């Protein structure tokens, strides 16, 4: 009896593993097929090639999309780390009037449904004259979630450390840089990964705020490529694979950080 139930659980797990990985294997496989007829089912490894990848990486428009994605995600990470570490430090270690109220107000912004406000956000940013700019893609990326994570992490740092540094005459900026941040690297990494993946995968916002190829990112390119290379499944799949791989590689190396962050984001409410 025990053996049978163990067997059924194994079957279930194998089923879910196949269900979640096969579409991505299909993507990789199709992107490596050199034949124009990508629906050729023969699994002949001799005609696997990186021809599609070579082709998209020799297309200047695609390289531009790729660069935009990297640039926006990296700037988003830097901006988010900066804003959430400074604010997290202030909320955790500095005493000031109204700190609880302001923190609560910032957290309230997380309750605003993000997809629903995109059209008004578009009207607002358009009013600033920021359509087709990197500013428009990067500045709205930081959220209160980063502040929440960093505040909790910095609160766990012993206050005595901060006080003794103050006695030594260190400024707040120096305390944050030399005392606090080295102790909360792990939380900073969580915030950085989440911001990077969020910015990299972001679809709706770049779709509506950019119309010019010079500012569009990979996920948008993918929907555009689909029509451009309508018949060439291999080429589209190569683009999809390039968009898919960076978050996936992060995940392979930092699985525990992901799970930590997910559990936190669930608890935030």
């Amino acid at each position, binding site marked *: 009896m025990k053996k049978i139930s163990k067997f059924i*659980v*194994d079957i279930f*797990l*194998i089923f*879910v*593993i196949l269900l*979640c*990985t096969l*579409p*991505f294997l299909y*993507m990789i496989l199709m992107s490596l097929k050199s034949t124009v007829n990508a*629906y050729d*089912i023969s699994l002949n490894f001799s005609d696997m090639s990186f021809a599609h990848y070579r082709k998209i990486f020799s297309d200047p428009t695609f390289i531009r999309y790729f660069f935009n994605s990297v640039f926006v995600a990296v700037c988003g990470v830097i901006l988010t780390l900066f*804003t959430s570490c*400074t604010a997290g430090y*202030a*909320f955790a270690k500095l005493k*000031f009037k109204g700190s609880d109220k*302001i923190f609560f107000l910032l957290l309230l912004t997380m*309750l*605003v*449904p993000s*997809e*629903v*406000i*995109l*059209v*008004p*956000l578009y*009207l*607002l940013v358009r009013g600033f004259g920021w359509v087709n700019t990197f500013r428009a893609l990067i*500045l*709205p990326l*930081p959220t209160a979630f*980063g*502040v929440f994570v960093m505040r909790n992490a910095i609160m766990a740092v012993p206050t005595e450390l901060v006080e003794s540094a103050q006695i030594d005459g260190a400024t*707040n900026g120096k305390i944050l840089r030399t005392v606090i941040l080295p102790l909360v690297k792990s939380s900073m990494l969580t915030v950085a990964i989440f911001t990077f993946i969020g910015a*990299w*995968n972001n*679809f*709706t916002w770049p779709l*509506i705020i950019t119309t010019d190829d010079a500012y569009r990112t990979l*996920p*948008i390119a*993918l*929907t555009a490529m*689909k029509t451009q290379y309508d018949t060439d*499944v291999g080429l589209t*799949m190569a*683009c*999809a694979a390039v*968009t*898919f791989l960076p*978050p*996936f590689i992060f995940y392979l190396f930092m*699985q525990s950080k*992901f*799970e930590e962050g997910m559990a936190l984001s*669930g608890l935030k*409410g």
Partner: protein
Amino acid sequence: MKKKKGLSVLTPYLYIAPISLILLTFVAGSLIIAICFSFTKYNIITPAQFNGLYNYQKLFRDSKLQLCIINTLKITIISVPAQILCSTLFAVLIASRRKTFLGKLAKAAIFIPVLSSSAVVGTVWKAILNGGNPVVKAIFGIFGINPTMLLGSSKAAIVTLALLMVWKGMGYYMIIALSSLMSISDSYYEAARVDGANTWDLLTKITLPLLKPTIIMNTFLATISSMQVFDLIYTMTGGGPSMSTTTLVMYAYQLTFKSAKSGYAMAVSNVLMLIILIIVLFQQRFIRRDVSEL
């Protein structure tokens, strides 16, 4: 000396200024725009004209809007229970196998769709379902399904989309459920086993009751996210065939960018925003009460 003191009082505010400024501008700013423009006639190009409650009155006469509300509800009703059921089931199964290779592999695999962009998911599934590949055809053939109909027919498309949302999202809720499962002390299970409880008893009398707050929270999170799904629909069907997958967010998008009716679009999205905010407030009270009961 006095001046320095005055400055140090300001320091904390200086530290919270960047994030406050960003959130105030973009989040609060958008909310104000959404409310103000909903009382105007605005086509993005010419200046907005105040037209009072006209947009809100129009909501009640718009048959397309009714269709979009029904589509949004359909997606929510299909995807949320399936998502919660799958994520809880797999969390329990993976927890029971967490030390084996298969368990670890399953935990990693179920999360891959979560971390990939909707654009990738949409493109890949569209390529799979468009039916050219004989292997795919054969696999769906086993269940008597023609894969091209899954997105091509207006009846099936919305179900297909809802199931793809389950496929993409269940790993997220699974991780949350799993981390809460891990916090259940082994001593409960040991004590129950001493009393002669079987696996089913352990599941229904210990695991599920202790997991209840997490399941409730996951249900709220899944409801809120499925009511505002946009990117997956945009990449998979674009709202079609014949509006059968146009949800409220999609409708507001089309009104702004295709029909140049931004004022009315704001009224539509404000209705959705209000519904979601009510759910969120309900969730806050619900979860707090449930936690205090424990």
